């Protein structure tokens, strides 16, 4: 098999997504007047910056053979931590730092619980998602925390290069993750953890450290996404980030990351988030009800999971 054919075979999922994106873009450019404009492109990027951040973290977790269902709850609680101290008069850096530390701590707790108890990540993070969401409700009593300082809003959604700062943050996350995931031991071991954890352990690697680090990163990135959302909405509430982990999982699987771990695709994940954003944007421009958007996302996840499973079976047979 030639090098090009091998590359095409391994990148089949991202290449298919690129093709679907192009078809969507041509269709939406013909069907709507406002789609093909710089303003709309910026709008898509800004509306999906935090989704991109979450999906990048989720890609690492899924590549390591796990899953994190508590992402939305971590997002909500870390944003509430930041908003609470900001309303009490703390400086912006303190609020942001507190949110990031809280998010990382919650992610670390997830990782430690999975590592120590050896219980499936699905069950552990399902349980902690309720706990973290419950904490948010306990702190806020269900009342949104609003009217946050302008300096915080500037940090989370201020203008950088003509776009909201969230876009830059997402870009920085991707730029840092590329070497860490593809060219350093961390990413190498993370995918091995998903491929065959026993092989990694028998090679003398302390696998727990890498498992916990994937969840800690997911927690950190959830908190970062929480800061962006809170700044954009000027409000932190217990229901923020509800079901956002599903969008992230959907993007990761669509992007070609193996469903059971072992390999991950950062470019595929980025393109999948963009495609999902494109579909949301297109449905809005076509004046389709938001109720349908939910259905479309679910249908896309179903297609992606089926495609991923078929890919996996083909790989096993091959």
């Amino acid at each position, binding site marked *: 098999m030639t090098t090009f054919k091998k590359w095409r075979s391994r990148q089949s999922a991202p290449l298919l997504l690129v093709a679907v994106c192009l078809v969507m873009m041509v269709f939406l450019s013909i069907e709507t007047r406002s789609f093909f404009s710089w303003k709309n492109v910026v709008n898509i990027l800004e509306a999906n910056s935090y989704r991109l951040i979450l999906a990048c973290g989720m890609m690492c977790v899924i590549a390591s053979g796990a899953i994190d269902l508590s992402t939305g709850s971590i997002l909500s609680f870390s944003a509430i931590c930041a908003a609470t101290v900001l309303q009490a008069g703390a400086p912006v850096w303190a609020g942001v730092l507190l949110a990031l530390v809280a998010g990382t701590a919650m992610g670390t707790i997830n990782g430690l619980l999975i590592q120590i108890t050896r219980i499936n990540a699905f069950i552990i993070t399902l349980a902690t998602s309720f706990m973290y969401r419950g904490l948010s409700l306990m702190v806020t009593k269900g009342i949104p925390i609003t009217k946050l300082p302008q300096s915080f809003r500037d940090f989370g959604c201020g203008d950088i290069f003509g776009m909201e700062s969230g876009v830059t943050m997402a870009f920085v996350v991707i730029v840092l993750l590329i070497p860490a995931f593809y060219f350093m031991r961390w990413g190498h071991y993370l*995918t091995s953890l998903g491929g065959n954890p026993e092989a990694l352990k*028998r090679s003398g690697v302390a696998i727990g450290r890498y498992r916990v680090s994937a969840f800690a990163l997911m927690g950190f990135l959830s908190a970062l996404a929480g800061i962006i959302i809170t700044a954009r909405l000027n409000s932190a509430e217990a229901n923020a980030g509800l079901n956002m982990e599903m969008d992230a999982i959907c993007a990761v699987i669509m992007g070609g990351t193996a469903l059971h771990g072992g390999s991950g695709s950062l470019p595929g994940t980025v393109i999948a988030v963009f495609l999902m954003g494109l579909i949301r944007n297109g449905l809005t421009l076509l004046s389709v009800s938001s109720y349908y958007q939910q259905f479309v996302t679910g249908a896309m996840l179903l297609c992606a999971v089926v495609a991923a499973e078929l890919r996996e079976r083909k790989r096993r047979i091959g």
Partner: protein
Amino acid sequence: MMNESIILEVQGLTKRFGHIQALDGVSLEVRAGAITAIVGDNGSGKSTLIKILSGNLRPDSGSIHIGNKTCPGLTIPQAISLGIRTVYQDLALDNYKNSVDNIFLGSELMQGPFLNRRAMRREAEKLLADIHVAIPDLTEPVASLSGGQRQGVAIARALRRPGKLLLLDEPTAAMGIQESHSTLEMLAGLRQRGMTQLIVSHNLHQVFALADYVYVMRSGRVIAAAATGDTTAQRLPELILRRESEAEGL
């Protein structure tokens, strides 16, 4: 004090899983440069012994002497640092990764904080050539390789770091005749290069073709031990199957 030519000495190892006594006072010696085989029926304790020596299990009692060290039990990193290299029955390969990545798993060559893939590939090619394993495309995931090639990758990984002792758990299990033959040739080649090997197998003919010393295990005990030159292949099945009360030297 251990004899100069004895590289590993195990004394009185015991291991119990619930009400099952997997090992019951196992003692054995492995001589430098030789191939020592452990044979026995299923459930005789062979694999438990290999798991203890490779650091995957801790014994309940007994001791392991390797080099100048005496340990009650080992962890995997300890076993690796003491020069024990293991080829597991399931080969412990990451099927998503290619041969180079598998050979260097846990001991990657680095260039600063980054993986030095070029150097790893060069060294992997050399390692595989040394043990006469032909893999046409090193970038293909190991899932697509034949049983013999996968065994070759697992052995190359074990040999990648200098070691004193190579443990092999059923190295030809689930292999075809031709693949078994090439694997045995590979192991004979390693002996010629002075690599000490401890092989667990239930294939008696292979053991006789390859090993210098043989231990027979049954019900968690070593029931007989001898140099293969001092006994015959016909005596082994008798011992493996004979009742414990009748056990004796070979």
